[in-house]
């Protein structure tokens, strides 16, 4: 098989079920308004479509990025008010009003998103609620501009090929927009940005250490979500021709969240399903008007408890029977490691490094250098500051004082993602994988640090998977892998970015003897390829088999340095590990 034909076959196999869904969606968009031509039904379609668009925004921020937002109704409202004010009071062209509305949403979304840089979790939930409530207060009370509780009427509709005067015609327009946004959100999922978002959802720290600029990605997620929400609101305003603050309050923000969750927040199609369901539910439960919202609250709890992945989770389970995993590109060349410099040069120089946590001196004046092409071991008893050292080197901690030079550049104070992009890769003591992503996606996130086109990223990822021998596991979900394979996967993920130096925090911990021997062979092969490695471990046999030089820490201070054999016989090292010889012997 020549490379070309295999690549054509590969390209064909990249066709995904989502492509089919988009075509089906287009058919539905054409036929739904024909099937339900009445004005009433068309209005419901318009409502469902605009809610669906707003919910798709939440797919990005909640489903992909894992950040909670209870302010989607505010963004929806920003879009709606832009169209309402623009086309009535100011008399702007509809499309210009839309652009202005989306721009306002961009600003507001980026502003709200930037709060995620400092806080997350419950705090973020609360900030988004505050934003939503303040928005509602302003639209209700700033009567001169927004019309207050009375709202704005006589909103215009856009000219689009033909005048969209009838509800049926406008329903086509709204559903078309929904399909377009759904396609974009679905496409985003498997781009480098989409993967970075999902990596943040699974493990923000690991994503940052792999070179994902988590700040930028989170702000982008919020901004995109806000813009999509505003688009939904704009379509709603022109559909109903009248708006008031009641349609954009906190209750609606909760509704949007519920739609995303009921349908399946990580799936564009699922969330449209959720939006459609909740748009029609009041129709079906019309006889229960008084307790409709009680049932609704109850349904949210039941879905959360019993269907963590929403309705879409069930559809996916059924679909899995027919699904065919996406292809992995064939490997043409063996994995490469970073090789920017010349052998024998200093890759990393640590000078007088201090890290104090309150009164605890975790790292207390350490210096060492690492030469290109060596395997350097950092050893020491428990609590000697080894892991703190790795965290300082990779930028997760900022040192109290001291210098760290990486490839001739001072990296103190740089963000972990910057340091990672400069060519430093690391593993974690306790595995930090992206558990819900597949093995393949995990490695792709690692590979995209080195940049290049999607094809190059995929090639690097495939080569790294091949190297650790996990290629045949590529489509397994990470959390289903046995522990030993998870460790290998973390290694592959770190290697896929072609690092200049690899920091391994206890790579041997928890492995059995066979697995440890395999690890030693892997490390030796990596070293032969020219990769510089810093390894932290307790296992002296592992260290003495692979390390050329070692630095020994105890209580945050360096107590010995030299070749591995020298160091292991050093009296201070023996004492640190086994205690004072004379005390030990009872002399």
């Amino acid at each position, binding site marked *: 098989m020549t490379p070309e034909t295999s690549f054509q076959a590969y390209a064909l196999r990249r066709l995904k079920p989502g492509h089919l869904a988009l075509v089906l969606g287009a058919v539905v968009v054409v036929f739904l308004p024909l099937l339900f031509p009445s004005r009433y039904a068309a209005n419901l379609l318009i409502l469902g479509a605009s809610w669906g668009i707003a919910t798709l925004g939440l797919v990005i921020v909640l489903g992909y990025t894992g950040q909670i937002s209870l302010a989607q109704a505010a963004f929806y409202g920003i879009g709606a008010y832009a169209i309402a004010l623009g086309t009535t009071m100011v008399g702007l062209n509809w499309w210009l009003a839309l652009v202005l509305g989306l721009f306002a949403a961009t600003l507001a979304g980026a502003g709200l998103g930037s709060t995620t840089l400092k806080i997350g979790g419950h705090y973020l939930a609360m900030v988004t609620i*505050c934003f939503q409530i303040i928005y509602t207060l302003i639209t209700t009370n700033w009567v001169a501009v927004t019309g207050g509780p009375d709202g704005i009427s006589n909103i215009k509709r856009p000219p689009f090929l033909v005048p969209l005067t009838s509800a049926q015609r406008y329903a086509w327009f709204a559903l078309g927009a929904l399909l377009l946004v759904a396609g974009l959100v679905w496409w985003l999922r498997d781009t480098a940005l989409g993967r970075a978002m999902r990596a943040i959802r699974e493990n923000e720290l690991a994503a940052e250490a792999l070179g994902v600029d988590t700040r930028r990605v989170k702000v982008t997620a919020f901004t995109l979500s806000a813009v999509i929400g505003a688009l939904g609101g704009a379509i709603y305003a022109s559909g109903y021709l009248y708006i008031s603050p009641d349609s954009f309050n906190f209750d609606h923000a909760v509704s949007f969240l519920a739609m995303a969750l009921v349908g399946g927040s990580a799936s564009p199609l699922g969330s449209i399903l959720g939006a459609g369901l909740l748009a029609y539910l009041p129709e079906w439960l019309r006889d229960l008007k008084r307790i409709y*919202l009680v049932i*609704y609250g109850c349904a949210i709890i039941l879905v959360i408890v019993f269907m963590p992945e929403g309705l879409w989770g069930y559809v996916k389970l059924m679909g899995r029977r027919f699904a065919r995993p996406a292809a992995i590109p064939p490997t043409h060349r063996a994995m490469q490691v970073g090789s920017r410099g010349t052998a024998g040069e200093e890759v990393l120089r640590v000078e007088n490094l201090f890290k104090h946590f309150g009164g605890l001196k975790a790292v207390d004046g350490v210096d060492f250098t690492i030469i290109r092409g060596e395997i350097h071991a950092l050893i020491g008893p428990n609590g000697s500051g080894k892991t703190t050292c790795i*965290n300082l080197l990779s930028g997760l901690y900022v040192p109290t004082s001291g210098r760290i030079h990486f490839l001739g550049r001072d990296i103190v104070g740089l963000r972990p993602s910057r340091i990672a992009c400069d060519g430093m890769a690391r593993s974690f003591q306790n595995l930090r994988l992206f558990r819900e992503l597949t093995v393949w996606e995990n490695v792709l996130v690692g590979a995209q640090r080195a940049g290049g086109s999607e094809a190059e990223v995929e090639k690097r990822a495939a080569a790294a998977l091949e190297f650790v021998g996990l290629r045949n596991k590529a489509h397994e979900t990470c959390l289903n892998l046995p522990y030993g394979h998870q460790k290998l996967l973390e290694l592959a993920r770190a290697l896929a970015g072609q690092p200049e130096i690899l920091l391994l925090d206890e790579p041997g911990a928890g492995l059995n003897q066979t697995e440890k021997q395999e690890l030693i062979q892997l490390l030796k092969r990596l070293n032969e390829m020219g990769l510089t490695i810093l390894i932290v471990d307790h296992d002296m046999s592992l260290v003495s088999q692979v390390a050329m030089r070692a630095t020994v820490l105890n209580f945050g201070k360096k107590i010995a340095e030299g070749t591995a054999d020298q160091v292991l016989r050093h009296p201070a090292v023996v004492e640190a590990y086994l205690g004072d010889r004379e005390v030990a012997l009872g002399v």
Partner: protein
Amino acid sequence: MTESMSMVGQLLFAGLSIGGVYALVALGFVMIFRATNVVNFAQGEFAMLGAYALVALWQGLKLDYFMAILLAMVIMAVVGLLFEITIYYPLRNRTFLPVIIATIGASIMFQNGALAVFGPSPEKVRPVFGTEGGASGVTLGGVFFDFQYLVILVVTALLVGLQYIFFEYTLLGKKMQATSQDKDMARLLGIPVVFMIALTFIYSSLLGGLSGMLVAPIFFVTHKMGATLGLKAFAATICGGFGDVRGAILGGLALGVIESFGAAYISAVYKDGFSFLVLIVFLLLRPQGIFGEKVAEKA
């Protein structure tokens, strides 16, 4: 004493009293958060349910006012327990996101349940001292001290003191503290963790219910009263430093005062916005709150 001075005193007193209610609800937040790491977005609804329980027993069943309060507290204990069993327990091993959303779902359910049962028109409840009609109180130095406001402040202070004694000096209190700090270790020491957590929810529901009954004569009782109360109490908790009892009280009192002065001197219609603005500023400048400590994630 000049007019403006007595005005300031009046605003301060009103602010502190409303702040006391926020503090009581906030204490409930802190209790549950410390025991389970769960933020209960339905905490404010406990206040609403407590107030409606009082309305039902006192107005509906024509019970004696204090008897009605006592029975309402029993109802609130049951509500807290049921809440723990149906919302917290099934989700105890999931991340914060599903739990937040489930508690929001519960809050929607409670609000609309109350709306369906009691209807949209606001209910009135009599204050502890005096009758349904007018407010009773004393005027000192140009400031009118409403008895109900004084009751709120006294009850808040009393509960804070009792809670302190309970947690520091009783075995049950220490067991609850141990549970909140390390569930696994507590279990190994033979502490019935599930029971302790259930107790926490019951206590927190009681706190919420009581604060609802205390504000009932000042605000009207509506199905919406819990939502704003809960959000402001949560804001108070964050400003004070999440999980810190002193912080919750100080935060609650401070927000009450800020609101009362903001409404008088800046804008009455934006009254509800002030606490949220303060909260956003706090979260951006000092996310750990007044008493909170910075925690770094362990790599």
